[in-house]
């Protein structure tokens, strides 16, 4: 069991790096399906982190949360996304308005900023600095993805990445939130996804494309 303890502690401290790697991947990915896979991997890392926290804090609720996160974010939502991509039959390109090199640069700058922002805060309270910085970077990256990708599907994915960041921030600062709140947040995400899925179908049916930048003409 000694070994499991060491591994769990290591998961908490190194997962930040793997999260940053997925963020860089999201910045360069050109296809929606690649982005969805990266989101799924990101969720796997977060699941591992929840499980490690559950093991270290010895809380049964956190195990349930880990299971829920795994079921929804690793399997359910990516599956729904693939189904949507299949059904919408729109081109697979994410329609980035920045080149991959620019996107990577922006993400790297965001990681720097989040470390700088978290540094003074994490020092005071007993919080792993890496994980919190990764959470802030996830929030920023999600927002950046929403702003810089023109496909409506990528707006949804950006929101999900952002939500992953908020979830991770909550996890690292509170060492496991109450189960009810976690479930509420998860259902919020699922309902949001459902609504946005319906909207993308509507957008596609009305305008024959999913390019958000072209919706600008709708202003009165």
């Amino acid at each position: 069991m000694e070994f499991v303890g060491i591994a769990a502690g290591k998961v908490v401290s190194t997962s930040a790096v793997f999260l940053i790697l997925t963020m860089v991947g999201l910045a360069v990915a050109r296809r929606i399906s690649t982005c969805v896979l990266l989101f799924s991997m990101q969720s796997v890392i977060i699941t591992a982190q929840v499980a490690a926290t559950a093991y270290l804090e010895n809380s049964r609720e956190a195990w349930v949360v880990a299971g829920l996160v795994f079921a929804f974010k690793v399997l359910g939502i990516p599956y729904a996304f693939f189904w949507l991509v299949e059904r919408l039959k729109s081109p697979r390109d994410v329609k980035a308005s920045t080149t991959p090199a620019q996107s990577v640069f922006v993400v790297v700058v965001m990681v720097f900023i989040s470390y700088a922002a978290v540094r003074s805060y994490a020092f005071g309270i007993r919080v792993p600095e890496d994980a919190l910085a990764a959470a802030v970077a996830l929030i920023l990256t999600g927002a950046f993805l929403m702003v810089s990708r023109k496909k409506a599907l990528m707006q949804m994915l950006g929101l999900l990445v952002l939500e992953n960041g908020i979830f991770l921030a909550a996890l690292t600062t509170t060492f496991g939130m109450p189960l009810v709140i976690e479930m509420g947040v998860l259902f919020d995400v699922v309902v949001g996804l459902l609504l946005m899925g319906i909207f993308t179908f509507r957008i596609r049916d009305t305008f024959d494309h999913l390019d958000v930048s072209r919706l600008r003409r709708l202003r009165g």
Partner: protein
Amino acid sequence: MTMALGAAQVLILILGAPLARGIIARIKAWFQRRQGASIWRPYAELGKLFQKEDLAPPTSSLIFILAPRVMFAAALAVAAFVPVLQPFALFGSVGDFVLMVYLLALGRFFLALGALDGGGAFGGMGASRDALISTLAEAPLLLALAAVSISARSASITGIVGWTLRQNFFEISAVHILAFAALGMVALAESGRMPVDNPTTHLELTMIHEAMTLEYSGPSLALLEWAGAVKLNIMLALLISLFGPWGMAGSLAPAALGIALGAYLLKMLVLMALLAVIESSMAKLRMYRVPDFLGVAAALSVLAVFFTMIAKR
């Protein structure tokens, strides 16, 4: 005794290089459900080429004949920097990782010169492409090595490997993961493997390394091919010794050396299988996408250097 071991390490890297190529080709063939050639075939090819006549175009100068020799010599010198069985290398105390990187660059420079001197149109095209790639790959290569060397507080490769060997496997930090990702991508570009350059193509528009060796024949071509194989072997050995040296011999006892050799071969096989998977599952990038690929490597290596600053140790 240690000197003999250092020489043995260089020999492993140099003489084992064609075998590494053969094994990778075999694994790739297995993935494509072909039978594949024998893993010893690269040796036979080198032997065949060494027996042939060395032809040089009448318009070429001395550089054309000199270039393959210089490239092979540079690869030989770089091989003497890389620890294989022990955290010791022949040139370990001669120079640091910067010298190693620029010895690699020297080889590429002469290869490009020779390609231009050959006078063929493809040679010039390949040389200019190779110059672009090596320029872009240099920054992430240097930065990733610098990140590892900062965390090891040592500029020589052997010092870094010795430090890593003393660390616990679970204590491997963010710096190493990021630098490994960056160096892995650079290794693909440096050795002309799949997402950047297709080593098996002879299609005019896509070849890079092959375009440069097009005018060469006989022993010169053999030396170029061999040097290319050695470079790939060096990159893989460098990845192993910098990021996974565990199992290296701490003493000169035969048993420890035997274990080190076994561990090295095992890790090499894993890396080769990984390379074969990458090459079988990815398409070659368009030439204008290569800067993006190496830009990601550069971003990762910048992050690695940044992480050395915030790492606790």
